[in-house]
């Protein structure tokens, strides 16, 4: 069986490189791979494109990456949360690029990439600024715009349990973006609370099959 378990946090995040597009799971407090994000801080990475629902809160996690100058661009749906103070200042100073994407389109673009597809037509954003520069088509009398797949070089996801193959289950609302991000990256790294023996996960309840997980780190 392919060995996917990282012995240390450093090993888990050692693959990341300058210029990479990094999909980072989580919504609010739930399902955020906090250890992995902290693990890539302080490594001097440059020009990352970060995909997340938000643009970092407070001064930890994605906000710390921003402060360290690692981030060239953020792709998210909700950049100006009250706590996104670091991003707001840097964006206004022109120090980081922003692509704001409707939340459902963001999730679907990653799912589309993971599914090996080349784009999709969505009604979301028709007649708005989001449609600018995109093809618009009418199908069966309804207007749609064409959105492109969004693929990551890396995904950092947070899960509840993992087995030695790398199968993942999540916990409640901490599932959120994690399963689609795991699908959509060339290399997916999972931060997991608990490792269980092979065969201990019911095959009916596995949300992210092992084939999507390249490396996992158990936080305990």
């Amino acid at each position: 069986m392919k060995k996917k378990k990282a012995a240390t946090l450093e090993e888990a995040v050692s693959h990341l490189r300058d210029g990479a597009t990094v999909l980072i799971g989580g919504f609010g407090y739930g399902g955020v791979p906090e250890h992995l994000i902290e693990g890539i801080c302080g490594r001097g990475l440059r020009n990352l494109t970060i995909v997340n629902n938000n643009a970092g809160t407070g001064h930890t996690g994605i906000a710390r990456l921003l402060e360290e100058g690692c981030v060239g661009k953020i792709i998210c749906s909700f950049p100006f949360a009250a706590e996104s103070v670091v991003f707001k200042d840097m964006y206004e100073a022109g120090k980081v690029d922003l692509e704001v994407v409707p939340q459902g389109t963001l999730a679907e673009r990653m799912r589309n990439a993971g599914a090996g597809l080349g784009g999709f037509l969505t009604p979301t954003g028709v007649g708005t600024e989001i449609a600018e520069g995109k093809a618009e088509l009418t199908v069966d009398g309804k207007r749609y715009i064409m959105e492109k797949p969004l693929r990551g070089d890396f995904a950092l996801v947070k899960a509840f349990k993992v087995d030695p193959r790398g199968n993942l289950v999540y916990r409640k609302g901490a599932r959120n973006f994690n399963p689609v991000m795991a699908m959509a990256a060339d290399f997916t790294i999972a931060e997991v609370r608990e490792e269980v023996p092979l065969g201990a996960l019911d095959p009916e309840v596995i949300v992210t099959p092992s084939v999507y997980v390249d490396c996992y780190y158990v936080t305990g």
Partner: protein
Amino acid sequence: MSQIVKIPQKQLLKRDQIAKRLAADLQGDWVVNIGIGIPTATLPFVPAERDVVFHSENGLIGMGPPPTREEDVDRDLMSAGKGPVTLIPGGAFVHHADSFSLARGGRLDCAVLGAFQVAANGDLANWKVKGASSGNIGGAMDIAVGAKQVFAIMTHVAKNGEAKIVENLTYPPTALGVVTRVYTDMAVLSVTPKGFVLEEVAPGLTAEEVQAASAARLILPDSLRTIAA
């Protein structure tokens, strides 16, 4: 161009009163998405026996009220606004792509959203201030375009005196032709093919006062009701 309108110098409805009025229109067994901000005020006013199934964009189908005891707060169980919630019996968790499939796929009977402006044709603006270089979209564009009905909940007039009920949007649109009803601190309006119909006014207000506080023509119904506040 934005239009300054006249706010009546009278007691208007408070947030909870608007929320209560809106909640009365959420029908039994509906699947409903509640936006962040003022829409969340409606939740406590929806009678449990209606068994409304609340959808939260982060993958909760059957979102329940906040836990009553501190020890029941679960960081993995939160609303779109990031507040602690519960899950009703028979609720389910799905991932983000599946959650928005539900929203766009026509399975929401209603979405309750805040608004900067609502136009007479149902166009909704709620994500970006005029002239700003960007804004917060969140799930609003997908939800607004996907729900069978959109109930906008807002103050009738902006703090700076600008009309929010308008003939045509002056703010960047969120979605076109989606709003079906508007609940404000002055009135309940429905959006019809002919434009806004003034369905109900807040106690103590006249139809003329609500019209004066609006930058779109309001059609008067045969019998104007007063909001039960």
